[in-house]
């Protein structure tokens, strides 16, 4: 697997910062290959993550999208989406993520997951503008809200918390304002 140097990664991500389309950009070489589309029913071993990566990335994802009175990344199964993605569209970033995790762990005496919550948050604040964190944020958000067959968004929990109801057909009225004012378009 070709490893993207940090310099290349930062250069590409920096030059692409911009509008909404650009916020979706994934400035790493995307390896060919499809993510397996089967839902991960059994929460067994990871396919692409090491146990260490699984534990540490889960802990980071849980700070990006914490459980509150609604489910967070852990409850929604974000880590299983990340595991799938690293064998698919994000395969090219595997080395980069491993390197970023090494650096995070070195800066925190060997474990992020073991830190108390407030220290986890300050450790992430220190790197929040870097590509490693931004990539994990992207994966966490995607794992929260993807179609469940991609491995995350367990039981549509992610969609439920933002109020997205995935149906293939709707009829007007659609929202509060058009229900109040009418859908006539003239």
């Amino acid at each position, binding site marked *: 697997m070709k490893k993207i140097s940090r310099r290349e990664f930062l250069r590409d991500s920096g030059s692409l910062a911009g509008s*909404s389309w650009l916020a*979706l950009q994934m400035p790493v070489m995307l390896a*060919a290959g499809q993510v397996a589309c089967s839902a991960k029913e059994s929460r067994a071993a990871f396919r692409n993550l090491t146990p260490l990566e699984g534990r540490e990335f889960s802990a980071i994802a849980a700070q990006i*999208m*914490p459980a509150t009175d609604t489910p967070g990344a852990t409850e929604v199964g974000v880590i299983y989406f990340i595991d799938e993605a690293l064998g698919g569209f994000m395969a090219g970033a595997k080395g980069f993520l491993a390197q970023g995790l090494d650096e995070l762990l070195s800066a925190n005496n060997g474990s992020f997951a073991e830190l108390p919550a407030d220290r986890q948050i300050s450790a992430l604040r220190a790197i929040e503008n870097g590509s490693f964190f931004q990539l994990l944020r992207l994966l966490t958000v*995607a794992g929260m809200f993807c179609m469940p067959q991609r491995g995350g968004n367990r039981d549509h929990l992610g969609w439920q918390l933002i109020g997205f109801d995935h149906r293939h057909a709707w009829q007007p009225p659609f*929202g*509060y304002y*058009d229900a109040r004012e009418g859908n006539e378009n003239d």
Partner: protein
Amino acid sequence: MTDRARYEESDTVDFVIVGSGAAGGVLARELSVAGFRIVVLEQGPYRRNADFTHDEVGVFFENQLMGGAADPQTFRHAETEQAQVQLNPPAALYARTVGGSSTHFSGNFWRLRPLDFKERTLLGDIKGTGFADWPVSYEEMEPYYTRVDWEIGVSGAPGPFDPPRSRPYPVPPLPRKSSGVLFDKGARKIGLTTQPAPKAILSAPHNGRAACIHCGFCLAFGCEVGAKSSTLVTMIPQAEATGRCEIRADSTVARLETNASGKISQVVYFDKAGKEHAQKTHAVILAANGVETPRLLFLSATPAQPDGLANSSGLVGKYLMFNHHSVAHAWFEEPLNEYKSVQCTRIAMDFYETDPQRGFYGGGVLDARPFLNSYPIAFGLSGIDPQLPQWGKEYKQLLEQNFTRNMTIIGNTTSLPQLSNNVTLDPDKKDGYGRPLVRMTYRDHAHDHAMASFLQEKALAIFDAAGATHAWGEPVRDQRLGAHLLGTCRMGDDPAASVVDRYHRSHDVRNLFICDGSSFVTSGRGQPTMTIQALAFRAAEHIARFANNNEI
């Protein structure tokens, strides 16, 4: 039922059409119905409605419709820079699939106006640009716009600023959404006049196709029920039903080959496995889009035409125009649920014309829509004001509160034609077939930015007047990508100042026609597809006439 056409490569067909999108689909249908034998070469696969999904990971991250990473492009803002590969999103956004980008667009279908075709005459020269009149007028185009309305299928109702039309819309506008209600309220308060958005999405059954079921996945996604009026579900089935048109998918063109007399004799292409083929033909129509069309002309250079086929003017690939689009977002107190139904239902055209009082060239149209924030992942990534938390507890609460309560206003605006904005071949990098990559060089004109900023201020004023609880604008800056690929083989009467004539025939190569976004002379106001298709209906009529009169 007629058998589908299948031509041998050695069988000289009447036309090879490169591209099956907005223009290619229309040309294929028109010319096959007129009796000609056609092969359409489409680099993407033949996806059907049932192949389209709501899968954001597939569409945004795997770039399934845009072709993945197999044929990347390079981008730079100026000649002085080294162009870099820009993978995702690519610099030129277009779908590689039968039906082309008409499968993944959101279907805003407003016509150009009489002024668009003669703005150079109306306003005078704009120094340092290629600002020019079109060789056609609105009056000449009107019947073809009407054919697009009826034969492609456009939903709408006339607005106060509309140009004259010879026939009403075939089906009424789509139902007004909450974004449209709030847009109307705010726009009227600040003195603007709103109207229904014309859409290439059916509000009612038409031409044997069913109406939209409001699933909400139009922009960047393909329509699973065929209500979006792509050429995939409109023109192409009719072309195939003639028994004279073969859609050859997964066929990537390498070059056009010319004979000793300077006419094109065959089109060389690669199949999916990378094997080279050559289709013999009497004539070629390039409808590959404003980036791929000039690329193919450069790839087809000959000793006699070393700067690219049909490029005696030196203007192949030049005057690239993206349109600018300013973006403003807002949140409201109650749910809008913009994830349902089509992108846009209401627009305001008050600022369409250039107003010299503003101090810069340009015009535009405001439209109300969710933009990408109707999609859960896209909203999660970029739906929260960048001034607010982007991770953690507060961020999550903002997502919960605002996914159903957001809307966007886009200011769709002009781009000036500049020689420094162009498509060339990358001198260093090649794709999987060994073809040089497309290299784009693009920097917005100062007037383009001024117009986009002007409309963004109006958008924020509309939000304020409509009672938004929070609103912000995305910075107007130099674009790095475009979905509208215009101007790179412009039409004109003067062979020294244009690539094709008023009938879309190359000034240099008698049996070569070019009709797609590259034909544009000016940019319009941000929604080009309807005009691309009107041009294609018109071009087909003239091309058929030339063929019947043995003038090709």
